[in-house]
Structures are given as C-alpha cells and as structure tokens.
C-alpha cells in the first residue's frame, strides 16, 4: 500500500527513505526521484501550484496502485507539494523499493509519467513580466504510450 502525501511543506529525502524502510531488510533496491522548480532563463521569480484537494490524493493513490500491481514493490512513497515555490525548491518525491533494481526504476518512471498526466495540479509561473498558467506538454502525454 503506497503512502501518499499532498503538502505545502518541504520533505527530507533521507528521512523519507528511512521511514519507508521501517527497519525492513528485504529490499535490494531503492529508487528516488525528486522534481524541482526549474528556472532555465533566470526570469522565474516563483511558481504557485494549485490542486484539487481530495481528488489529488485519490488520483495519486490510483496511479500508485497501478504501479504496485505491475511491479513487485515492497515500498512506495509519493509526496507532492502545493502552494508558492521558488526556483530550486522541491516539488515532488517518488520512492520505490523492490528486491531488484529494474522493478524499482521502472515503477518510479511509470509513477512520474502517470502523475504528470493525471494528478490534478496546475502550475502558475511568476516572472518580472507578470504571471501565467503553464501549458501542458504534448510530450508528457506521449510518454504514457510506452507503458501500453
């Protein structure tokens, strides 16, 4: 059963790994993915993430459930932040644990692909010129096809 959190506050990756391990020793592979606020042009002041309380948690749990059905995971953790974040801040954490690395890598990859196209979050970017909603990327949607 995956552990899902949708929160305004930051997370500590090392603490989250320890908590998910919970003293278990039957996993041989732990994969973590961290998504952060990207500022390629140096013009981004901040990014505000809006979400759909209730549906967000439900959708993340549904995606995690699919990952757990496809790969033999012994642990799965998803944390997604909302609210106002600055360049370099953490946005999302995915941790997958399995006996072998391929399952852990693939499950983490699958989780991120589906999270990006299904979890109800919307990014609003603030720059010196004003603020605006980030458009969805076609490549994110196309990324799902490889899991068919």
């Amino acid at each position: 059963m995956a552990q899902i959190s949708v929160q305004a506050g930051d997370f500590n990756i090392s603490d989250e790994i320890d908590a998910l391990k919970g003293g278990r020793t039957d996993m041989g592979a732990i994969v973590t993915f961290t998504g952060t606020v990207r500022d390629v042009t140096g013009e981004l002041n901040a990014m505000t993430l809006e979400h759909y309380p209730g549906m967000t948690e439900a959708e993340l749990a549904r995606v995690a459930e699919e990952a757990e059905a496809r790969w033999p995971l012994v642990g799965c953790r998803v944390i997604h932040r909302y609210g106002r974040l600055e360049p370099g801040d953490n946005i999302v954490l995915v941790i997958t644990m399995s006996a072998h690395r391929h399952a852990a890598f693939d499950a983490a990859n699958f989780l991120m692909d589906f999270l990006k196209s299904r979890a109800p979050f919307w990014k609003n970017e603030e720059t010196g010129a004003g603020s605006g909603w980030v458009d969805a990327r076609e490549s994110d949607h196309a990324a799902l096809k490889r899991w068919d």
Partner: protein
Amino acid sequence: MQLVYFAWVRERVGKSEETMQLPGDVETVADLIAHLVSINEIYGAALGDTDKIRIAVNQEHVSTDHPVTDADEIAFFPPVTGG
C-alpha cells in the same frame, strides 16, 4: 450538483465553486457544457473550447460522454501540469 473550477477556468468563471440545479434535459458532461455555455459569455469563455478543458466527475477523470446527475461534483480544469 456542485460545480468546481481550477486554474484559468476558475479565473474565467470568476469563482472556484457553485451549486446549480441540474436542468432536466442534461444527461452528459457534453450536455452540461452546452447548457453552461448558453447561459452567458463568461461560461462561454471558460468552457467553450472543449479541446482545452478536462473534466472530473466525483473526483475521477471522465470524457464528455460521461453521465451526470444532480448529486454529482463536476470539476472543469485545464490539462494538468504537476510533477
């Protein structure tokens, strides 16, 4: 039914949620969008371009042919951009 809006859909409608009586001739999400768009140009600007909006009924993603009832929570929003 409870209608909820997010991101630029929320901004264009001018509110984040509202309660509305389901009209008798509305059976699907597509019917509901057509009804809302016919009310005024505010809904037209928010929901008129159905290629640009996504819908959830009772907090699950659905397509526009999904049925709706007066007990439903129906959400309208742009394609998601989390992660």
